Every structure is written in C-alpha cells, then in structure tokens.
C-alpha cells in the first residue's frame, strides 16, 4: 500500500494543490522541505500558472525555497566552469553525472533541485592525473584517515570526495557507477562511449538518456542513505517523462539494462515511480522490465521497505516500521556493495578501529 501522504499527492497531482486547506499546506511544506522538494513544488505550481492562487503564507515559503534552488543552479554552472578549466589541461574527457548533468544538459529534473556536490566520471586510467590536476587547482582530499583512503581507492568506484579550499564545494570523481567490490559490474567503458556532448560544449558530456535513467536507478536502489530517496525518485520520474518523447528511448532502456547488468535496478525504478508517482510507462516496457523482477518473497519485503524508506524523514511520513526499514535498506545496500567477508571486515574496522567523529 502506497501511503497517501500530502507530499505524494502533491507530486502526483500538482493541479489539486490549489484547493488545499491552510493546515494541509502547513504539513505539506514541512514534508516537502524535509524531502528537499519544496522548490520543486513551487516550480510545478508556477509552470501551471497556479502559484499565485496559493494562500500567501505557504506561497512565501515556496518562493523562499525557489530562491535557494536558483542559487544552487547558478552555483553548479560556475563550479562546472571551474572544473572544466582545471581539467582542460589534463586532457581528460569529463562526463557529468546526476544533478550537474541535469543542469548543464537543461533537463527537467534540474528545476527546483538542490545540490550538495558535483559528480563526474573519468576513465580509471586517468584517475591519478585528474586528482593531481584538481589538487593543483585548489581541491583537497577530505578523508585523511588511512583506512578511509584505502576503502575508497581499493574498493570503491570513486576517489574520496574532494573539497575546494576556497569555495568549499565538493567534487566526487568516479571511475564507475558501482563499487569494484559489488556483484554487478556495469561496464564504465560502454557508459562513457555512449555519452553525448552537451549542446554548446565540445568538452562536456552526459550519459545517453537510457544510461542516465539507469545510473539514477542504480544510485537510488543501491544507496545506503535514503533520506533523499523521494527526491531521487522524482529525478527518475522526471527523466522518464521527458525522455519518453524520444522514439528510441523505451527500447534502448531495456537493451541497455541488459548490456549493463542493470535489469534489477531498472525493475525497481519503474515499479516505484509508477506506484508512488504515477509515472506513465508503456505497458510493453513494464512487461520487458519483468526480467529484473526478484522472487515473489523478496519483492514483498522490498516493497515494504522502500515504500517506507522512500518517504520524507518526517514524523508525519513514518510508521512504527519506518526506522527498521531504513536500517534494513542500509544493510542491504552495504551487502550489495561488498562480498560478505570484506563487508564483515569493513564493519569491524568502522566499529572498533576507525577514530570516532563526535
């Protein structure tokens, strides 16, 4: 059962928001703010010409958050310019991922979105060169603990996050979309080869439409932190609605899911966008996606977990199982990330050996 929270109603049917009562607005704003979707709601209403029909108080909150998201989008442009300038000298082709990709390629999920870092993917062989170049341009490593360094460099799919010493912005440099130690190995070379230049740039690429959706799906359904889960689901919903106008999109989505071993994340992405956000997905696609369906028992359990954990971390969107669902999905994500023995070793190290941060 998908819960009937206001935030879900709002995302499904923004037009109905104009008849919301003030107490409902009060609650919706709190849920949306917690889910980082307040500015998104503002944009949805504005695009429909309904923003001015919202009562004054809640409208103010919507507009306040839009100011923040506009600033974020501007900051992403500036940061990408800085990254391009830095990496131009290294001669490494840069592919932008997730939020930065949506902004630079002017895709609809960028509207009203908030950003915490910039993600890029580069060839594994270029990692050292990219890291050195970024360091020369003011980005510094953030995880200084020897174990963390090893964790990232030996087992993960990215360098330890790097932070710019002046602007305090963070860049994640990836060489793959899943850790080296994960059971699934989506081929990074295939992903980068299919990447497309962004209009107006000759040095900046984003993943091809199907790959972008698949990456979004992997990111969400393999993530150990789901506090941004609903926002990530909204990203996927928005990409699907946008790309569905491309004639080759749906067929290529299933082809690429097989090629990249990502049929399971795609199944979940379609299942939960359709169930939670009423995303229009062609019935043929739903049928094809069944190849990624887990066994019935697993599915019953994952439904229970995701339908709770994808909701905003707000007391009005929780039941007695929500906390447990989040914890179990954390364990699941770590499980998918590493083989069992390595996982045991990692958790042991984190629990007993790593210095504790306050």
């Amino acid at each position, binding site marked *: 059962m998908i819960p009937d929270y206001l935030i879900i109603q709002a995302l499904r049917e923004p037009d109905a928001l104009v008849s919301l009562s*003030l*107490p409902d*607005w009060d609650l919706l704003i*709190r849920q949306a*703010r*917690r889910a980082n979707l307040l500015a998104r709601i503002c944009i949805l209403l504005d695009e429909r010409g309904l923003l001015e029909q919202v009562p004054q108080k809640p409208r103010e*909150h919507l507009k306040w958050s839009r*100011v*923040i998201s506009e*600033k974020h989008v501007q900051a992403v442009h500036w940061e990408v310019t800085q990254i391009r300038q830095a990496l131009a000298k290294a001669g490494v082709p840069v592919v932008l991922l997730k939020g930065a990709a949506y902004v630079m390629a002017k895709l609809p999920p960028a509207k009203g979105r908030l950003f915490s870092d910039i993600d890029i993917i580069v060839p594994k062989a270029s990692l050292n060169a990219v890291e050195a170049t970024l360091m020369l341009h003011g980005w510094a490593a953030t995880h200084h603990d020897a174990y963390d360094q090893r964790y990232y460099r030996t087992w993960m799919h990215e360098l330890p996050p790097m932070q710019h010493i002046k602007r305090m912005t963070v860049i994640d440099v990836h060489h793959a979309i899943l850790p080296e130690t994960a059971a699934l190995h989506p081929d990074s070379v295939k992903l980068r080869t299919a990447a497309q230049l962004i209009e107006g740039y000759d040095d900046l690429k984003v993943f091809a439409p199907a790959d972008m959706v698949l990456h979004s799906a992997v990111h969400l359904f393999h993530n150990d932190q789901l506090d941004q889960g609903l926002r990530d689901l909204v990203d996927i919903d928005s990409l699907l609605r946008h790309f569905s106008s491309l004639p080759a999109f749906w067929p290529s989505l299933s082809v690429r899911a097989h090629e990249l071993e990502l049929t399971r994340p795609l199944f979940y992405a379609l299942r939960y966008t359709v169930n939670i956000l009423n995303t229009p997905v062609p019935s043929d696609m739903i049928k094809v996606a069944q190849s990624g369906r887990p066994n019935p028992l697993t599915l019953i359990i994952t439904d229970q977990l995701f339908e709770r954990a994808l909701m905003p971390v707000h007391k009005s969107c929780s039941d007695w199982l929500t906390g447990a669902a989040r914890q179990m999905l954390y364990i699941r994500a770590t499980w998918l990330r590493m083989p069992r023995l390595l996982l045991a070793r990692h958790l042991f190290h984190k629990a007993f050996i790593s210095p504790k941060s306050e």
Partner: protein
Amino acid sequence: MNVSALTPSELKFRLKKSGIFLRTGSFITHLQTSIPGVSESVGLLYADYPLAEQADFADFHVSLTRPRNLRRWFKPQALFSFDGNTIFKPLPLDQAFPMLEWGLNWCVSNHVNHCLIVHAAVVEKGGYAVLLPAPPGSGKSTLCAALVNRGWRLLSDELALVRVGDGKLIPLPRPVSLKNESIEIIRRYEPSAIFSRKVDDTLKGTVAHMKASSDSVARASEVVQVAWVIFPKYQAGSTACLETLPQAHAFMRVADNSFNYSLLGLNGFRTMARLIDGSLCYDFTYSKLDDAIEIFGALTPQASSK
C-alpha cells in the same frame, strides 16, 4: 489575544501540550517546550506578543526538549529542534532560553528570502530608521538597548529584514540580547527595563535578554524607510564621533554582515544598492550612551529620502 492573557501556569501547560502559535513580526512560530525556565522567560519577555488566533499555519515549528538519555539526570541539557530536526548541539539546560532566541534567529536567517537579511539592529524615530550593522563585540546591542529606552522604536536587534523590491525595513522586534558588562550598564541606564534571568558561561559569555517595548511590538507591522546606516563602535574613553563613510565602503561592509546577500544574487545587489543610495552612512565611535543619544537625536535624513 496576547501571551499576557494566559496565567503562568496556563502558559506552561499550553507550551507543554499543544504548544503556542506566537506571532513575532510577520512570522508565526509554533513553539513547544516542557522546560519550566523557558516558559517563565517567554511569559516575561513575550507578554505583549499576540498569539495567532487560528492555529492553522505556522512558519516555523520549533521545540525545546531535554534529550532522552542519561543526561536527564547528570548535567541536564536542552535541545532545540526545528520541525523534529535538531539544529544545534545540545547546551546546558540553564541556557535553554538563550538557545530559543538563537534558534528563532536561525529559523529566520535560514529560510526567509524575500528580504535581504543583515546582521544589524534597527531603531526608528519620526518615520526614519537607523540600521546599525556590526560584528559581535562592537556594542551594537548595547547602543540599541539604550536608544529604545530613550524614545526610539525597536525594529530589530539582530536581524534587519530589508524587503526586496521596495527596500522597506520589515520590523522583527524581539528581545534585545545583551552580553557581559552591557547587562549591568543597561540596567543602570534604565532601571525600569525588564530582563530575563542572566545566564553565565554561554558561548557568548554571560547573556540576558531585555524585553522589547509594548509599543514596538504593537507596531510590528509598520514598515519603515531606512535613512541612515551607522556602524557603531564602542571605544572606552573616546569622545562620541560620527564620521561620514563613503557609500562604496558602506555597501561592502553591510554585505559582509548580510546572511543572504550572495544567495539573493541580482536581487541582493539591487536591494543593497537601493538601501545604501537612500541612506547617509557613518562610522560612529562612542563611549558614553548619553552622548550617543544626543547625536542620534540630531540626525536628519538626506533630502532625497524625505
């Protein structure tokens, strides 16, 4: 209905159960707490503030609680939550009321974006406002407290809200925060001023809050034109001196003291430019409050803002 309409025990009960919907300036805060010290200070300093008639919308939902762990008995603490999320690290229980004040400032400075928010005190007389931006330690609040006890209306002690669009100052009169020696100085300066209990050993030293006058609270919806931007600086033994400040300098220094200047982008620049253009800008050094009152009393707005 104002907070003063509730008896102390009614207030305590409401704060503990459903919370109160407190109107400060143009914002409504839903406040819940079961900490008795907070309820007493709210009753004292917010007596003249209206309670929202219909509790159907609040800008901010905040609560002050005691963490549910061993610290309940051993060196008890207070926790400020914004809609269920703890924003700051817990503080000793004794600091719960100052923490509420800091928390309410955080609510405004982190969300409100239809105004340029400047870390400044604002007082008004004769329809014109003085903006007193200053980094901590410059004696801004002391001067502000003295002025509001000598006929100036309090618009704000910490957060000046300059409306994007028309540059008008939106009042947010809340208790004036005084630190260390300033507390006794103002007590002596105006014995009738009402203070919350002094709290020692906070991050900012000893703090106490002074009640805003009921007149400034009652007139919280009257927006005002800013006519002067004055950077106060307390300097022991100095003679009071008002020194003209070039507008470009004033612009940059107000921007340094702003919470959301860069967030607002072009609107931030335009609002700041309008504010500085419409104001006479000064550096002000002083050591005696009476001198300051006299000099401020003699201020006349520039012809264009009349």
